[in-house]
């Protein structure tokens, strides 16, 4: 795993007990107690930040924190001494027999055509997919408990994940860690497109880091700046990895990633000049003391002679890495070296752009996806998914995964896949129909995308009427349909590095590559917002009022008419006549 820095905390030693202090009511050994330093499995922590200026003037910052631990959660011995690895996640892994766990919280949508490919893709909202060990007997029950526990750890409403939005993909989402068996019975995938991401999700995420937010790169994570961005995504990935190049034994890897794209106009005030202080309102003063490596990479591939932008303070370290199918050059700042911080003891990198004309176009991303709802009215509609292949002469296969909630009833007989106007038959289709209120639709297709073309997948659907208790408190907002997932092996421009355990920067070593000519990429389309026919929730009150009025007026009047008897009544005489009658009564004469 390379050389470690010398700056590591020493394990604290247990002090020898002083002879006179043995308590009288407990057994003591006559020999002085020996110092026992338990043999701990080794763990290692690395942190890095990659800054990539985007062609639209925005800037993309990607944090990765990686903890590798050589312990065995699945073995018989219970793990009880945690150092760098967070205890809450370790207990989750051992209690629920988790083989791999990937959870992400995203605010915003990644615009592939303007920003290129992200290092780690994620869909808007919350996404959780888990591979369980094959010793688990009741996967659904374990999944339900796991989502509840994770909702407590991350302060998110993950407890809304249940059977109506969980699917079991049959070919997508292969494990990203090592393993031989891929029985998809042990895989569960769920997404909550409506989930909001805010400081309350960032706070527990930061607390999982060994240094917290007190030292190292995590001091830059101030929520006021991070959430004032076009795109914000934080994720936790746990998987088993090879311990060394021989790969005879495994160790557990925890990666915490945070991707953020700052907008030129709202965060940058229109000026094309970015610095750490402008992006994060903080500067760096030290690396995390528990980290074996702490680096910042700035993408300077488009700036070989410094003609586009100027980077200060200057750094002599340059590194090249093959990432996303392209060889990129990076300026490296090593935070474990005291010299990086200079005389001011703080590092604030500045990227200042020179004249803003005559920029070269960025390399067009080879794969791109879009999705939208067509149709009119509240009864039927059509979902269109478009996949673009921008490679001039290579075709490649993609695996499309669609999860549609049960209240949009898909008519699969209307499913069409067309490329360049002609029908394109998928070589593999897996469809699991939905069951009302039990499970959603699952559609997986392996489609070959012809070069330089647009492939369109359309399917018609009908909107269902929900029971009135199933509507959310604000049903007129609409209902979300989760993003489609497109997984593909995209041909790469340069040869990818298949040796997975060499010392590589973290951002280039996330997806394992098996072959040199292509790299794996996963893109997410937009989520959809559809309106379901919504009843008028004030109608019960109106109906009661109207019915009661009709009943009271109609029935009441009819009853009176039927049961009342009428009598003729003498009209009362006028005042003069009444006075006269009184006088006549007094006189004893009959009245008028």
């Amino acid at each position, binding site marked *: 795993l390379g050389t470690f820095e010398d700056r590591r905390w020493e394990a604290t030693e247990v002090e020898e007990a002083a002879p006179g202090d043995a308590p009288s009511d407990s057994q003591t050994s006559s020999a002085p107690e020996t110092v026992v330093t338990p043999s701990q499995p080794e763990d290692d922590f690395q942190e890095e930040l990659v800054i990539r200026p985007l062609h639209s003037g925005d800037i993309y910052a990607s944090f990765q924190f990686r903890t590798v631990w050589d312990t065995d959660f699945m073995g018989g011995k219970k793990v009880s001494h945690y150092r760098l690895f967070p205890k809450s996640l370790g207990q989750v892994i051992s209690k629920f027999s988790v083989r791999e766990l990937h959870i992400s919280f995203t605010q915003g949508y990644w615009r592939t055509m303007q920003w290129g490919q992200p290092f780690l893709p994620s869909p808007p909202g919350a996404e959780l997919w888990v591979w369980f060990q094959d010793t688990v007997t009741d996967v659904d029950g374990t999944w339900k408990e796991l989502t*509840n526990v994770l909702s407590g750890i991350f302060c998110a409403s993950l407890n809304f994940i249940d059977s109506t939005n969980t699917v079991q993909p049959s070919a997508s989402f292969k494990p990203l860690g090592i393993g*031989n068996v891929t029985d998809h019975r042990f895989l569960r995938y769920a997404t909550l497109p409506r989930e909001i991401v*805010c400081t309350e999700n960032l706070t527990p995420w930061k607390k999982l880091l060994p240094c917290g937010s007190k030292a190292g790169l995590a001091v830059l994570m101030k*929520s006021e700046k991070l959430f004032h961005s076009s795109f914000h995504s934080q994720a936790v990935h746990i998987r088993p990895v090879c311990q060394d190049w021989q790969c005879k034994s495994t160790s557990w890897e925890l990666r915490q990633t945070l991707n953020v794209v700052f907008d030129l106009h709202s965060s940058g005030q229109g000026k094309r000049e970015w610095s750490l202080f402008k992006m994060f309102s903080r500067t760096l003063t030290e690396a995390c003391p528990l980290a074996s490596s702490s680096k910042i990479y700035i993408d300077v591939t488009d700036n070989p002679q410094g003609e586009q932008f100027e980077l200060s303070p200057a750094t002599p370290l340059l590194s090249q890495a093959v990432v996303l199918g392209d060889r990129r050059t990076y300026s490296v700042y090593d935070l474990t070296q005291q010299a990086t911080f200079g005389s001011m003891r703080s590092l604030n990198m500045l990227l200042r752009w020179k004249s803003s004309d005559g920029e070269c176009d960025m390399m067009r991303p080879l794969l791109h996806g879009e999705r939208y709802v067509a149709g009119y009215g509240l009864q039927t509609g059509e979902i269109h998914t478009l996949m673009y292949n921008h490679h001039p002469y290579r075709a490649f296969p993609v695996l499309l995964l669609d999860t549609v909630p049960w209240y949009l009833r898909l008519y699969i007989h209307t499913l069409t896949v067309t490329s360049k106007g002609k029908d394109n038959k998928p070589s593999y289709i897996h469809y699991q129909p939905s069951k009302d209120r039990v499970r959603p639709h699952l559609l997986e297709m*392996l489609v070959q995308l012809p070069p330089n073309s647009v492939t369109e997948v359309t399917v018609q659907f009908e909107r269902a009427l929900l029971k009135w208790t199933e509507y959310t408190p604000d049903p007129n907002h609409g209902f979300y349909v989760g993003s489609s997932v497109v997984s593909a*092996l995209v041909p790469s421009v340069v040869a990818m590095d298949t040796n997975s355990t060499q010392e590589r920067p973290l951002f280039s070593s996330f997806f394992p590559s098996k072959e040199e000519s292509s790299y794996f990429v996963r893109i997410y389309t937009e989520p959809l917002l559809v309106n379901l026919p919504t009843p008028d929730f004030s109608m019960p009150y109106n109906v009661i009022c109207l019915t009661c009025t009709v009943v009271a007026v109609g029935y009441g009047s009819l009853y009176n008419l039927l049961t009342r008897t009428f009598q003729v009544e003498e009209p009362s005489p006028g005042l003069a006549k009444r006075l006269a009658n009184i006088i006549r009564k007094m006189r004893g004469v009959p009245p008028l």
Partner: protein
Amino acid sequence: RVTRKRSVDKAGQFFGSGHTNNWAVTCTSQFWFNYRHVANTLSVYRSVKRLGIPDSHIVLMLADDMACNHRNPKPATVFSHKNMELNVYGDDVEVDYRGYEVTVENFLRVLTGRLPPSTPRSKRLLSDDRSNILIYLTGHGGNGFLKFQDSEEISNVELADAFEQMWQKRRYNELLFIIDTCQGASMYERFYSPNLMALASSQVGEDSLSHQPDLAIGVHLMDRYTFYLLEFLEDIHPASTTNMNDLFKVCPKSQCVSTPGHRTDLFLRDPGSVLITDFFGSVRKVEITMETINLTSPVEQVEDKPVDGDLQRETHSYVDQLPVSEIIHQKPKQKDWHPPDGFILGLWTLILLVFFKTYGVKHLKHIF
């Protein structure tokens, strides 16, 4: 080393006025224009955290997201004073119930403790009979009810019964209930369990009013009662000896326009002897000792079996992310065989009956 006898005496002093403090703070309003209710809740949350109650002892329920709402011109902030002086959202906030999770049912379940077994600890009110609980509710209300999420209500009878359940199950020692809604006093009229003290921002028939709008954000930032309550709480520090009688004087009619009310007849102690920090803070009594205490001897670590270099262990490898040929030739899953359901059985029975009726039973022996 502390002898047993002394520790018992000290324990009596510790438990004199309620030991642990857990509490719940709730906001029950949705939509952007109810920003002030979230600001109310967060300012009380902030005061209580400042006075020492940790996040593990707070159940915070916010019915809608204001800080990261797209209408918020300054994301990840919730302000309580105009001109954006005080950000009550802060950088270290943990919301336990948010969005659609804030419902009457969940609120009552949290209070009474009847939650599904897989509910995480941070979402439970783990109080016992020595806990002082503070409950703060804010939102829109009326005479005898409080509105949740713009679609359901909790009535004062339900709330009183929930508190009685808590009393029967010994889930609180003393409980302080503060409500800032219109006609808030109606909510505590029906309480009947002992050791409850209640405060409301307005009497029956009166409306609680909001304090001040902020022109940049475009909505009202706080309600009057909570604004003055926050001002009062900012002067409290963990060692202060202010008591409840001062809390009852917060926001008189001249400032609040409505008349705040309170109810102490169910409370056993005299309100003048109850400290504010009994409910709003978590003051631990600490005794410092200079004596060493022997812990049990450390466990001898069992040595792992030495790694045998000759032992052939299988080489692991990463899984192919998109094995195209494997996917294409994937056999379709064997569908589980289900016995034919009622419709098919009924149909076949009908066909057989008709057949035998038509052709007579004597043909039966030719078939079998």
